[in-house]
């Protein structure tokens, strides 16, 4: 356990310092992370205002709060694994990950934490500024926050494991562009970043409850901003089941995929 802690700290710190080194690059990436929710915030707010202060059961304030919290939650659970992994496997650099005295996923988690330590403060500052700009009122209770925190952690873990599993396809396909763009479209829409899931038509609402994407971004936000102020507790069970399923698939898929790896160079 202490060995892992040490490893996590070392990799997180290394990655954090790496981000500091390329400040311009990392900050320019963050602009996009702020712009996307901001654009949808403006769009849905405009619709709510035109529709006498509410849209599909969400008030104007709900919509604004939803997208500001989304800005933070989406960054909290974000990974760039699919792109990074494919580059590692194709270049042969993945060999060095295999030589580590631990499962290679740990290095990736640690680096992701290092990246978040750098980027989250920036996103949080943007969220606070946006909150003041739109005069949003947050009206969640202490118990909502108490539930939000573990669910957010679980969402991070789940999205990470899920995207790591998808990244394993790099062992089978040289070119991951198609798979990553398909995945990107699916997660963008079904995790509630374009349209809040509570606004989906009814048949689709039952579908998204069973799809994995809700538990990566939308579900933690739903706990804080729940239209009709009933906290959707049912999601906890679905989320737990999904995490168990993905751990199982990850192990199986990793064992079969890694055998295909053939290191080149160096």
């Amino acid at each position, binding site marked *: 356990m202490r060995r892992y802690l040490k490893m996590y700290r070392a990799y997180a710190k290394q990655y954090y310092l790496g981000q500091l080194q*390329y400040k*311009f*690059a990392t900050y*320019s*990436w963050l*602009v*996009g992370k702020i*712009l*996307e929710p*901001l*654009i949808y915030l*403006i*769009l849905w707010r*405009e*619709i709510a205002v*035109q*529709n006498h202060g509410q*849209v*599909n059961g969400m008030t104007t304030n709900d919509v604004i709060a939803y997208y500001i919290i989304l800005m933070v939650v989406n960054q909290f659970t974000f990974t760039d694994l699919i792109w990074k992994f494919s580059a590692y496997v194709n270049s042969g650099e993945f060999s060095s990950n295999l030589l580590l005295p631990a499962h290679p996923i740990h290095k990736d988690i640690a680096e992701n934490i290092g990246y978040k330590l750098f980027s989250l403060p920036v996103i949080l500052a943007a969220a606070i500024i946006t909150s003041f700009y739109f005069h949003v009122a947050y009206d969640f209770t202490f118990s909502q926050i108490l539930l939000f925190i573990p669910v957010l952690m679980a969402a991070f873990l789940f999205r990470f494991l899920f995207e790591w599993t998808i990244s394993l396809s790099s062992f089978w*396909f*040289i*070119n991951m*562009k*198609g*798979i990553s*763009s*398909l995945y990107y*479209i*699916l997660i963008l*829409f079904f995790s509630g970043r*374009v*349209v809040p899931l509570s*606004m*989906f*038509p009814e048949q*689709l609402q039952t579908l998204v409850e069973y799809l994995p994407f809700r538990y990566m971004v939308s579900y933690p936000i739903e706990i804080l901003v729940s239209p009709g102020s009933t906290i959707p507790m049912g999601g906890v069970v679905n989320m737990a089941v999904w995490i168990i399923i993905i751990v199982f698939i990850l192990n199986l898929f990793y064992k079969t995929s890694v055998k295909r790896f053939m290191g080149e160079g160096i």
Partner: protein
Amino acid sequence: MDLIKVLKSIVGINLLNELQYKGDFFIQFISVLLDFVLAILTVDIMFSQISALNQWNKVDILVLVGMYRIFVGIINVFTIPSLSALPGSVISGDFDYVLLTPVDSQFFTSMKEVRAWKLSDVILGLIFIIYIYATNELSFSLSNLIGALLMLICGGIIVACFYSIIASLSFWFNDVSNLLIIIPQCFEWAGKWPVTIFPGFLRILFTFLIPVGVAITLPTQALLNSINSSDVALTVGFCLLLILLSRIIWKMGVKRYSGASS
């Protein structure tokens, strides 16, 4: 006519290269179709409550979605893949080879990579717009069509020049490749919606700094209604100005370039 000859062989080489990844092409095709379906769904949900968004009704927005796809297709055929490679080649010194060819360096750098299959985006966008027009029994005149085409060409040139200017910055700064990835993404976020929706600072950002508005909103307006001649004159003027500016910045940049390798 040497340029056309060069262009022809570039297209040929790249087509062969891209055809290696047939499965990938198929998946990307499916993604674009899925993207259309989800866009229709999004617009449906948005307009279940209101009838118009800043004078844009549901059908208008759907035409805009099609126009967005056409535009993204166009800039992804040449501009984005070619110019994205510039920062890397300046750092590694591979830019030497561009300078050594007897072809104009700016032309060659902006045309070097061709993703011919991205034209499928253009075709899908076109089919989508025709579908929307047919199902909603919209009518259009020849002047609409010419106006839209003119605006689309101007928009394409504006974005290509803008992109070239940003890429040229790599002659001065260490690595601008991140900027070159973020700009196309801004098109994705902002381009699917009429630029007139956005308030003050964002509208300025998306009109001048990242010209989404000129490139996607204006051609759509030209197709749906008609645009006034002052808008056309302004766009063409802006287009010419950017061509000149990108040329000047390119020339200045190339002068600063010092081969890194060999």
